[in-house]
């Protein structure tokens, strides 16, 4: 297999990621760490008491996870799972039943000892077009690498 050189230009769009949130998905996310008690994420009464909202909301960490997935799919697990970062601000709640679309656009790159740190502006919007989260992701992409054999 030949040598592959990858370059990233400012303005390049990365592949969009769409997620449909359900209460079941939220419960699994919360339960995966053994958090089984009622919370603003899993229980309407707790959400009303803590947040004053009429229903549950998804943890911002779920949006963070989805942004990480989008970045990983674009840069590859070999790169992103070792050098990747995502920094996300949560602007609006994500609720069960929402469909969230994550988009990313390359905003620049800087040289690193072992490659280039590529920066991506990230935005998450719900099905109504409201922005639910914004931030930035980065990955250090080797200057040249051999992709794994099929």
């Amino acid at each position: 297999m030949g040598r592959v050189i990858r370059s990233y230009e400012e303005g390049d769009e990365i592949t969009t990621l769409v997620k449909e949130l359900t209460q079941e998905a939220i419960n699994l996310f919360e339960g995966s760490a053994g958090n089984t008690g009622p919370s603003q994420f899993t229980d309407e009464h707790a959400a009303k008491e803590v947040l004053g909202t009429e229903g549950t909301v998804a943890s911002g960490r779920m949006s963070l996870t989805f942004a990480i997935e989008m970045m990983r799919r674009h840069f590859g697990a070999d790169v992103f799972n070792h050098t990747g970062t995502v920094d996300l601000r949560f602007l609006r709640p994500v609720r069960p039943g929402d469909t969230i679309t994550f988009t990313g656009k390359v905003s620049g790159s800087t040289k690193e000892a072992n490659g280039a740190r590529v920066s991506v502006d990230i935005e998450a919007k719900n099905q109504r077009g409201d922005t639910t989260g914004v931030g930035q992701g980065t990955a250090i992409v080797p200057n040249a690498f051999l992709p794994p054999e099929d």
Partner: protein
Amino acid sequence: MAEVDNRTQLDWDALEVGETFEKFEYVLTQEMIDTYRKGVMDPEAGFPTIAHKVDVRQYNAKYTDDGSVNARCAFHCYNSPVAGKRLTVTAWIADKYLRRGKNYIVTEAVSVDEDGRLIDRVITHELKQPSEVGKKWGG
């Protein structure tokens, strides 16, 4: 018999930036990974530790407050954790700030596995007046 809650009520003004909490250890199981991957609908998701909220766990073990809302979160990937390995988490108060009359706390945590592999770093900004967002979000 009800358990006694020995936690301290948060005094935001007195909270010291740099306060480091007791280390937290746990074993990451395959079941945790599988459940997490189902929840995030991604069979290749590599960092189930995100859902464990370990950066605020030891804070919540020490302090009690009116709850919180995650305002911002940053995650640094170093190595995906492996099922069956014991993870050790070191967490501390990285910052605190007042913005538009609301109190925020920034916690930071680093996870390392039993072989010394650095797993991840997570930095979370929590708003400590969660009812304020309910008003903003419109119920």
